[in-house]
Structure formats: C-alpha cells, structure tokens
C-alpha cells in the first residue's frame, strides 16, 4: 500500500513531470492563459495519461515482450497514445463543443505531449506492474493538472497587472514558470 502512496507523492510533487522533469511544456504554456481552458485541458490529459499508461503496459506486457518485439516499443506506444487521444477528442467534441473549440489544436497535440510517452516508457524502465503503472500514470496526470491549474490562475492575475512593457506576454509567463520550478524542486528529499 505504501508503495502506491509513495508513487503518488513522487509523481505529483517530488518528481513533478512539468516542473522537475520538464516534460509536457507545450500545453503547459499554450493552454494556461485562462483558468477554464486549463481545467478542461487538465481533465483531458488526465484521461489520456491514465488510459494510455494502462494500455501501453498491457500491449508491452502481453504482446511485445512475449514475442520479443521490444524494439517496436516506441512506435507501438505512439500508436496507442494517438488512438487514445483521437478517442478523447471525439468524446470532448460531443460533450463540450465549446471546450473542443477553445482547446483547438492543443487537444490532438496531446499525442506529442512528451509527458505521455515519457510515462509509458518510464513505466517499462522502472519495471512497474499493472497497478503500479496505472497509479504512476494517474499520479503524473494529477501532478500535471495541479501545476497547469496553478499556473493558469497566476497567469490570469499577471495579465491584468502592471507588467513592464518588455516583459508582457510569454516573457513574464516563463519567468513565473521558472520560479514555480524552483519552488517545486524544494520538494526533493520529501520522501526518503
């Protein structure tokens, strides 16, 4: 039981995928302008990450490993992730057309989100079991969502504040992200 709690704390705080591992920076910067879109993106990515983490584990464990096709791992994982993202896109388009329009290109770009592929590959590298893979994927998603929502909230306030002209827009956002990253790296050593 404690291993799963440890995995969660590790992926959410200590080894946060965005701020410590620096994966998934594209949606992090691109969708964080408004809080509502960031929340929508966070939910979509959580869905994709958890599902693809499980699916990748299953394909690796029961298809690639027994047949000795480990060298096809990367391309197969990408295929799995692409399918899951397509599926998610259809669901979002049906349930919330507004979110679909607002997320725009970033929804299919979850396919190229290195955090998703990263989770899948790290699961294999760290030789996780089925449940561990699932928790690992879910924890990574929670960490990503939390940071995305925090950053979006901060960006909303920064955008209406008195920012000096040279810093407006992406510049102040990246500086803020850097400071957040410094803060999150303070979590290292939380679990000994």
């Amino acid at each position, binding site marked *: 039981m404690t291993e799963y709690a440890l995995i969660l704390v590790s992926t959410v705080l200590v080894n946060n995928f965005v701020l410590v591992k620096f994966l998934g920076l594209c949606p992090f910067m691109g969708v964080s302008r408004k809080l509502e879109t960031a929340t929508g993106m966070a939910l979509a990515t959580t869905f994709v990450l958890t599902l693809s983490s499980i699916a990748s584990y299953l394909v690796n464990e029961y*298809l690639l490993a027994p047949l000795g096709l480990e060298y096809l791992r990367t391309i197969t994982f990408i295929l799995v992730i692409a399918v899951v993202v397509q599926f998610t896109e*259809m669901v979002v388009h049906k349930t919330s*057309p507004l979110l679909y*329009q607002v997320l725009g290109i970033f929804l299919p770009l979850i396919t190229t989100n290195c955090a998703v592929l990263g989770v899948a590959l790290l699961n294999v590298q760290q030789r996780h079991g089925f449940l561990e893979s699932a928790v690992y994927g879910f924890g990574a998603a929670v960490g990503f969502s939390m940071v995305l929502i925090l950053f979006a909230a901060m960006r909303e306030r920064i955008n209406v504040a008195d920012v000096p002209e040279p810093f407006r827009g992406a510049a102040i956002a990246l500086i803020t992200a850097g400071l957040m990253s410094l803060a999150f790296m303070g979590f290292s050593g939380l679990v000994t």
Partner: protein
Amino acid sequence: MISAILILSALAVAFGLLLGYASVRYKVESDPMVDKIDALLPQTQCGQCSFPGCRPYAEAIANGEADINQCPPGGETTIIALADLLGRDPKPLNPENGVEEDVRTVAVIDEQVCIGCTLCIQACPVDAILGAAKQMHTVIASECTGCDLCVPPCPVDCIDMVPVETGIEDWKWSFPDSTVNAGLSTLAPHARTVADGEREDDETPQRKAG
C-alpha cells in the same frame, strides 16, 4: 521480421476499428459555436465586416475564414469578448473594415423631401422604416441600429444620420485617469466644480425637456 509487421498491422487494424466505432457513436450534428459567436455580435447587419449580415460573419469566424477584428459597430468590446470565447488574443480593429464610432446614430427621414419610393424600406435589414408606395416613410427610431444601409438607395437623399442624445439614464462614469488629479477621489474627480468656470469640453450635452 514478418511477424513484427503482422503484429503491428493487426494492432493498427484493431485500433482503427475501435476508432471507427467511436466516431459513429460520438457523432456531432451541428455546430452550436456559431450561435455563441452570433450572440456576441451587435446585430447591426451593416455589412462592414464584408459579410452580408451578422450571422454569415459568425459562421465565417467559426469556420476560420474570418478574423475576429472585422466588426466596427461592435468595437473593442466585441473583439475582446470574441477573443475570450475562442481563446485567442484580442487584436485592434482592422482599419479596412471601418472605424469605431463614438456616438450612436439613427436615421431620420426629411418628410418634406421624401417621395415615397420604398427603396429605403427594402434596404433596411431590420425593417425599421414604416411606409408604403407613395405614402410617407418614417424611421422607427427605437428599432434603428444606425447601420447606414438606407442612405445610399434614397434617390432624393432625404435621410440623415443623426446622433442620439444621451440622457441621465445612459450616462456613464468615465474611466479613471490615474495621472489626473485623483485627490478627493470619492467626490467625482472628473467633475468641474463651481470655481472652474466654463467647461472646455462639451461632452455633457443638455438634455431636452419632455
């Protein structure tokens, strides 16, 4: 080698079938986005955006054929609202489409000159002109959106665009300019007081009685 290709192909086919099923199951019929965009437009139906009305412009925005900064009657507020809705950056109004007017205008027909030709009635996009052939025409001021479309067709040029007077009900507080005297700020800082004498700007017109 062969088995690898076969396995991958099988996997791809399986996923393809899954996606095919999902695309049918989660089919989306119409695009409610257009309604949401149309709700933000000012409905002047003036055509300055280069589309024949507000609904076609909304459809063009939804299709990505038009940009969000083409509506002069909507002005900055509409651009910001559209940017907000679509998650884009607001940009300044495209000068090719026109300039934002400060004062709202309505059309007024000079009844001495009107010949009752009905050309303006046919031009008005909101049917705000009352009249019939060889009868006097008149503009229903409360329904006129100030779109200017009735002015060109009139053969005797009897239609004028007259600015609408603002009264106390429409009066708005000005945006506070922090470089100007903000002292005694709760006490109407923009107001000219008695000792200031004549007002140099005529932005506060006297309202007519009745």
